[in-house]
């Protein structure tokens, strides 16, 4: 999936089932081709800040949008969000929280930390596909990044 062209979506998700369903939903809607999946928060940060095994990414462009699960091994999604949004350069990357949780606290905390969008993954696959299409359309096609 790695290519020289710009990474369109960084998907941070530990559950392989969810990864598969998300990717299927994206593909089904023909939204993105360049998608990178990382299984935990630590790796997500290494990717974003070009560290560890992603050192070589130093000069590459930022992903156009980050789809971030909250419940992640090692570094949690909220921590990842906080670090990104505190970084003067990386903060402009749109971050969409894509999670099973509808916990009020999580929603409040995410927006406090500067999340761009908070989307609850519906259990119903058809609704899930709809949700992914909408977010893809918005963040990849309509939204303009400075």
């Amino acid at each position: 999936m790695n290519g020289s062209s710009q990474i369109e979506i960084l998907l941070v998700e530990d559950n392989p089932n969810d990864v598969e369903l998300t990717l299927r939903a994206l593909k089904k809607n023909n939204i993105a081709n360049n998608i990178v999946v990382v299984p935990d928060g630590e790796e997500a940060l290494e990717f974003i800040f070009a560290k560890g095994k992603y050192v070589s990414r130093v000069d590459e462009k930022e992903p156009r949008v980050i789809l971030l699960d909250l419940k992640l091994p090692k570094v949690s999604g909220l921590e990842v969000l906080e670090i990104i949004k505190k970084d003067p350069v990386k903060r402009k990357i749109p971050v969409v929280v894509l999670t099973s949780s509808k916990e009020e606290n999580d929603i409040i905390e995410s927006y406090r930390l500067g999340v761009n969008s908070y989307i609850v993954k519906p259990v119903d696959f058809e609704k899930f596909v709809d949700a992914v299409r909408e977010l893809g359309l918005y963040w990849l096609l309509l939204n303009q990044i400075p």
Partner: protein
Amino acid sequence: MKKIIDSLPLRVSLLYALVAGIWIVVSDNLISNLGVSPLLQTYKGWFFVFVTALLLYFILKKLISRLIIQNNELKVIEKELQEKSSMLNYILDNVPQSIFWKDINSTYLGCNEVFSKFAGLNSPDEIIGKTDFDLPWPKGEADNYVKDDKEVIGNNTIKRNIEEPLQTAEGKRLIINTTKIPLHDSNDNVIGVLGVFDDITDRKHKEEALIESEIRYRMLFESNPHPMWVYDTETFNILAVNDAAIDKYGYTKEEFLKLTIKDIRPEDDINQLIDFVAVRDEKKIDSGIWKHILKNGKTIHVEIYSHKIDFENKKARLVLANDVTERIAAEEALKNSELRHRSTLENMDEGYQIIGFDWRYIYVNDSVCRQAKKSRKELIGYTMPEAFPGIEKTKMFSMLKNCMKQRTSAIIENEFKYYDGSSGWFQLSIQPVPEGIFILSLDITERKEAENQILKLNAELERRVKERTKQLEDINKELEAFTYSVSHDLRSPLRAIDGFSKILLEDYSQLFDEEGKRLLSVIRNNTSQMDLLITDLLSLSRVAKTHFKMSVVNMKEMAISVFEEILSHKQKDRFKINITELPEICGDDSLLRQVWYNLISNAVKYSSPKENSEIEVSYITQKDYITYYIKDNGVGFNPDYTHKLFGVFQRLHSASEFEGTGVGLAIVERIINRHKGKVWGEGKLNGGAVFYFSLPIEENCNERQQSN
């Protein structure tokens, strides 16, 4: 004597002539009758001679002896006269009175020694021939003297006790008391005047002084501000009384003088009074305090002083009464209050002690002895360090020292260690007093022990609370982690099941017959039911977790907007909805909305199968509560199961009849409970249902901010 001398010769001659005559007449006849011889004639002559001679003899003898006796008597008289005359002169010269005598022309004939000295003469003889105007008296006074002389001589009467002035030759002014007596000759003719006077200057002065002092004393009695009276010590009668007594006792003077002193005494004191008067006879008695009774019956206390006097020839006492009623009352009150204070001090629970500047115990009450475990004898007169060796090294003592020197007060709590090793806690209030310092000590041992006990219990309680809180926090954390897991981890597999079932249907649909496709959709229905359950469970747990934000909630608006949310336009036509006025209430806006949501959605859900569904929303006002209710004419429920209405996962209808998780009413109940309200339901099978919830009316809604 002269008479005798004058008549005797005559009498003798007459007697002789009588005898001789008689003889001549009778002698011849006598002789012839007797026949006597002529011889007898001769003898007759001789006899006559003899008788006359004898007669002469006796007469002469008697006369001569009488003369001799008379002569002797004369001598004695002459001697007596001489003696009397010298005695008179002696008396004249030695009597203290002045004596003088004058002739009818007030020319001095003589005077005595005393007089001559007043007149400035060297001897009494020099007075003879002088008049008052020759003597050193002032002219006017001399005129008065002569006037008196004339009166006495003229009236021939004695003039006694003439009080008049006299100026001596030395110029001394005297007052004299003169008596002037007329002098008579043997024929009772007035021939002059005899004067006798006394120098009464001193007496006069004394008399005047006496009168003056009597007036003064009378005034002292009459005008004395203290009641005074005089009473007869034998009859007890009141003999005199002053104005102050009249004022004080209320009797008039006349009434007083009819009373005895027994009448102004209480009945019980009379015997004592009688005994007292009988026994005490001193000149002056300070007889102390007695009770007297006024005319109006009031009893007063008087201090009595009395003097023994003679009053109108009666044995009496002069009494002065000083009203000391108020003083006695004041003293009594003072004594009572002192007694009361003392007994209060003695008996009070607090220790009360006064320590002198030399650290000696001046006063301690019983409580101090009890607290110090020492007798009074062991404390009074001893210094603190003597009574409690080592006390001078204690913090408390330095505190006392400070108060003693700086004259400041202090309150301290001090633990006192006894010799026997035990100890007690005391609260000491220290005050500077004129004698030194005053310490009020309160035994607070029990309180201190109780405090310690409380402190220990509190510490224990706090430890337990901490422990319990920690446990609760742990449980809470676990619960939170659990719900967090539920919301994430239970959903993911559901999504996977649903998602992959869908993928199966999409990618491999040609491999499934109709039954296979139905089974896959059953799987997907269950995943969605499971998702609903999870959602409801999470919202139930959120009721407990959410922070309460109390505010005034407009219930009518809220109910209307919830209806709008729940009912689609199409559905609306099927329902007849009646929402009356609903009062505002104090509560959490979002939670109450949840209540309305659940109740209204239930009403809608269970009315749906019927035509002409009616839903009524209204309220009932009670004293402290407002009860809202929602009434439908839907399927209702079996009232036997009313108690199960609000249980979690409890359903009174099967899933095939009505969708649902059995959590909605449980949420309602929890929310209402958190508002300190009540919720209950009434229903009949196919007879509709009514759900009531009552909420307390809060006066100050914004103040009731609550958190879980």
